């Protein structure tokens, strides 16, 4: 899922100058699960903004609303025609889709979107995938070196790996140490004998913003071409 962190309240307050109607928009998907942007957090932020408005005499009309998934417009119909300020508690994707859905509104981020990760215990979330567009998990014992090695090395571990820890932080496990040990456990260390050559980064962000067409699921021409086996 997408992992986000709450923005400090003063930073959010600074984005609201000149607003009159303020809608704090929660999302019940990823940011709710990482406990920063769900219904409860949206309501808390809403109360804080209302209190600030009252104390500082800002005159904001603040309310909160939480949708199922801010990144899909079919869930955004309650926002139809909204022209005020939206404090988005959804991820950066959600915030942008909301802006597209409400072109006359001012959408500001209430969270910092960080990465694609998974919970580790309670309240801790760790990056797992960098969305690089060319998955090699079958070569690396299901541990991604692009996302989890500080240098994204494809032929690691580097010389800074010690006691299973990354040189960058003692809190960070060395992904390549984990890969080597996992492959050893699986009896597949021979996978590491072959060098992985320089990769093509075009499927990653380096080919520009990515547009993925799933022909099977697309309407119109793309699906017709898929059906006809082109």
């Amino acid at each position: 899922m997408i992992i986000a962190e709450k923005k400090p309240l003063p930073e959010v307050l600074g984005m609201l100058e000149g607003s009159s109607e303020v809608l704090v928009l929660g999302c019940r998907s990823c940011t709710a699960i990482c406990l920063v942007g769900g219904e409860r957090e949206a309501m808390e932020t809403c109360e804080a903004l209302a209190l600030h408005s009252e104390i500082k005499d800002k005159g904001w009309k603040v309310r909160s609303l939480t949708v199922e998934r801010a990144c899909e417009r079919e869930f955004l119909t309650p926002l139809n025609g909204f022209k005020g300020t939206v404090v988005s508690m959804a991820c950066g994707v959600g915030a942008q889709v909301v802006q597209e859905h409400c072109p006359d509104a001012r959408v500001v981020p209430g969270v910092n979107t960080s990465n694609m990760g998974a919970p580790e215990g309670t309240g801790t979330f760790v990056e797992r995938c960098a969305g690089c567009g060319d998955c090699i998990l079958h070569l690396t014992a299901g541990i991604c070196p692009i996302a989890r090695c500080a240098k994204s090395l494809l032929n690691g571990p580097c010389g800074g790996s010690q006691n299973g820890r990354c040189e960058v932080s003692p809190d960070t496990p060395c992904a390549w140490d984990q890969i080597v040990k996992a492959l050893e456990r699986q009896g597949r260390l021979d996978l590491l004998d072959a060098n992985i050559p320089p990769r093509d980064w075009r499927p990653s962000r380096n080919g520009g913003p990515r547009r993925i067409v799933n022909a099977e699921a697309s309407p119109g021409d793309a699906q017709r071409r898929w059906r006809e086996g082109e």
Partner: protein
Amino acid sequence: MSVSRLQEVLDSGRFAVTAEIGPPRSCETERLRETARALKGSAHAFNLTDNQAANVRMSSIASSVICLQEGLEPVMQMTCRDRNRIAIQSDVIGASALGIRNVLCISGDHQMFGDHPQAKNVYDLDSIQELMVLRRMRDDGTNWSGEALPQPPQLYLGAAANPFADPFEFRVTRLAKKIDAGAQFVQTQCVLDIERFKRFMRLAVEKGLHERVHIIAGVIPMRSHKAALFMKNKVAGMSVPDSVVERLRRASDPREEGIRLCVETMQDLGSIRGVHGVHITAIAWEDIIPRLVTEAGIRP
């Protein structure tokens, strides 16, 4: 055929000496020239680091050229941290055009350790892929995309190895991977834990790696037990035995003891099967290098 003196020395079976010169933080060209003049003749080749510890310094290309002008043979270090494959190939073509032959391919210290922790790193390639790219340029006469190079760069390719990082057994596999990728010589992390280094070398020799690459063992002179403690506790990928710290702590003249320790280490290393030279890293103490090689009896 040798393209550099370092290659000639190593290929002829002689014991090679290399030493590190940290480029200045700014345009202190004269200071670099003075260092170069003072060190001339005390090693076969000199490594010019590439923004070591991720601190901004004079480029390794420029400082390598200045050393060349002073009659020293440079080993230009080139990290993958700050350059993509376009810049790496371009810089190496430029370096070779300027007379630089020895290139050390390394991934580079993470920028978190340096003076610009806010920087974005590159890592388009890793050190093994950098070797693959440079070897193709030299041997196949094409750049990585396959475009012909009418006059390919002349290169003697090196890599780093750290026998003190983990997982231990994999360090030998990694050395083999670097040789497969094109490494002709390897410079190791500084050896203070000689027992662990010997175990590493035994494994490397068992695999016959010493016949496929020239292994140059790193050494570092230390001026005090505090320097040893710093390396033990603060430098990633170092192994410093307590006995070394204790020896320096108890010495009446720690500086002299540090020199003795370094000289002894170099002599010990020379007797290990598969070790073809030593690499001296005397951080901010480069002027001690001539004395070290003289006392160890390995002055070129």
